[in-house]
């Protein structure tokens, strides 16, 4: 374990705690940048998908992990971002470089507007309220057929930035780098939120609304801001998802996606950027893992490959139950423990991460 000798306030403010940590993350970034040279087209597609899920996860994490507001309606904002981005390009001829951030702004504004009445609700009621948004958006897309082409759906055009084409199939590497760039920018923005008064206001609202208010935090405004920022990021992920899928309709962003997003960040570990990425790895790669293991099993046992319907959901559900029971801090919590074990070897104690059993205010029904 490294003890950092702090000589200035900046040591606490900077992105990295010490040089070695910065070096490790830079190494990770370099590895991520080199991935297209190491992997085939198929796996780059999977990695792109994973990154898009991670961006969406970071969006939801700001709301759920940092501000403590549940949302089962984030697929709606994926849809808003996706449709806004494509419609701006197709109907108004706005270039991607403009339509993409605008899609985020539109999704963010929609989220903040919806938040104003919605955040008066707490806990399970808020979850149900946001669930309604998800269902409503699905219906609205079908109703607004002249614009959205209803259940038939829309095609996402190839992204064109100053003559450079980004297409999932024609130029998968380039598309991957674009998504990676967006992901890195979102991570930096997320870190900025965490280290500024805004992030602390979010945490204050999450842990105790009454004392946040006594500290001068405008609770209603902070919640609306959190919703806005969260849905803006989710909207950006939605726009990328549209380009990744190529074709999409109301079914692409159904309620299952909302639930999957929420489960993803719980499995990954609430309240951390790592959690969003760990969760995204599980969600994006689980279907492939199942397919591979199925092939392995049939190789051992013999016989043809048997497709079991609903197997993916079942495994996902089992994973979730397992984590809630045995590791409420998610994969990131487990990762922290493993890291500490090796850092302190052989002095790790089993109870080092045991939290005092205290009544969590965030879980109280209000």
């Amino acid at each position, binding site marked *: 374990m490294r003890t950092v000798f702090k000589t200035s306030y900046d040591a606490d403010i900077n992105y990295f705690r010490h040089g070695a940590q910065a070096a490790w993350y830079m190494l990770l970034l370099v590895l991520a940048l080199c991935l297209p040279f190491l992997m085939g087209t198929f796996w780059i597609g999977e990695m792109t998908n994973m990154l898009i899920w991670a961006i969406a996860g970071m969006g939801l994490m700001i709301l759920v992990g940092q501000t403590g507001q549940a949302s089962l309606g984030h697929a709606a904002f994926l849809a808003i971002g996706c449709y806004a981005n494509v419609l701006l390009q197709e109907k108004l001829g706005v270039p991607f470089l403009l339509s993409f951030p605008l899609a985020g702004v539109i999704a963010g504004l929609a989220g903040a507007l919806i938040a104003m009445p919605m955040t008066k609700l707490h806990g399970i009621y808020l979850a149900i309220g946001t669930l309604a948004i998800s269902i409503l958006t699905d219906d609205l897309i079908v109703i607004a057929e002249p614009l959205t082409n209803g259940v038939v759906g829309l095609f996402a055009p190839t992204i064109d930035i100053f003559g450079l084409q980004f297409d999932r199939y024609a130029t998968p590497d380039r598309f991957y780098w674009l998504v990676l760039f967006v992901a890195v920018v979102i991570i930096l923005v997320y870190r900025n939120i965490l280290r500024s008064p805004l992030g602390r206001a979010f945490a204050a609202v999450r842990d105790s609304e009454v004392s946040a208010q*006594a*500290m001068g935090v405008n609770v209603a405004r902070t919640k609306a801001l959190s919703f806005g920022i969260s849905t803006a990021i989710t909207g950006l992920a939605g726009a990328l998802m549209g380009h990744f899928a190529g074709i999409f309709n109301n079914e692409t962003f159904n309620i299952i996606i909302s639930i999957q997003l929420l489960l993803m960040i719980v499995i990954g570990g609430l309240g951390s950027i790592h959690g969003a990425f760990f969760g995204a790895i599980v969600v994006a790669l689980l279907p492939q893992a199942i397919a591979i293991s199925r092939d392995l099993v049939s190789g051992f046992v013999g016989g043809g490959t048997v497709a079991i319907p609903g197997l993916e959901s079942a495994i996902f559900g089992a994973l979730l139950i397992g984590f809630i029971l045995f590791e409420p801090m998610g994969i990131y919590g487990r990762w922290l423990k493993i890291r500490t074990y090796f850092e302190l070897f052989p002095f790790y104690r089993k109870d080092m991460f045991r939290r005092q059993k*205290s009544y969590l205010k965030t879980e109280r029904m209000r």
Partner: protein
Amino acid sequence: MSLLEIDNVTLRFGGVVAVNKVSFSVEEGEVFALVGPNGAGKSTLFNLISRIYDPVEGDIRFDGESLLKHPPHDIAKLGIARTFQNIELFEQATVLQNLLVGRHRHRKSNFLTELLFTPGVREGERRHRAAVEKVIDFLELQAYRDKYIAGLPYGVRKVVEMGRALAIEPRLLLLDEPASGLSVEETQDVAFWIEDIKKQMGVTVLMVEHDMHLVSAVSDRVLALADGKVLSLGTAQEVQSDPKVIEAYIGGSDAQEREVA
């Protein structure tokens, strides 16, 4: 002009009159204690001052200005800080982060500059951290600076909450039972801190406390409440020897009857 004026304030919860036509004023620079049996309305008065409740009638003035036209989150901006009877800290955050939330009142940046973390935001962060370090030094919280609240013992939490209120740099500090659940030594620390808060920082203190030793040690004036009504006002000795106060605590008529029997 008094710093805080409670003017004929009444609050009802349905048929229960929690606070009944209470009037008193707190002068700048004093330590003012509220005492009284459970359910007397002491904490309710605190919640009225922090605008969690709206009084049915009466007015609350701070520095001559009515608080009733301000929303609850403005109270800290006006310079009133408070602690809670059942500690209300931000559990999933470190001591340092908790204290920094107290600096929210002094935030000069807006969310857009914070998303980009402009140099101005960084400068503000440095200033807030310097201010918080002073509080940490004052309350001797150095050992707990980067610890999560969820893992801290009760006594430390109590101190952290007081520190968070001090980080606001208030003019008036409301302490709701600062010594409840503390050991004798810890209570003595609290007494010294309250003295220093008054003398060194020039902060006016209004506190609710049951520990009469602490009350008589630190407070300039004491107000006794019972059933939402003012019983007695004066120095700690005067209030403690007031027959009405003794009756409210021990139950005068019952005691007399028992003596007769």
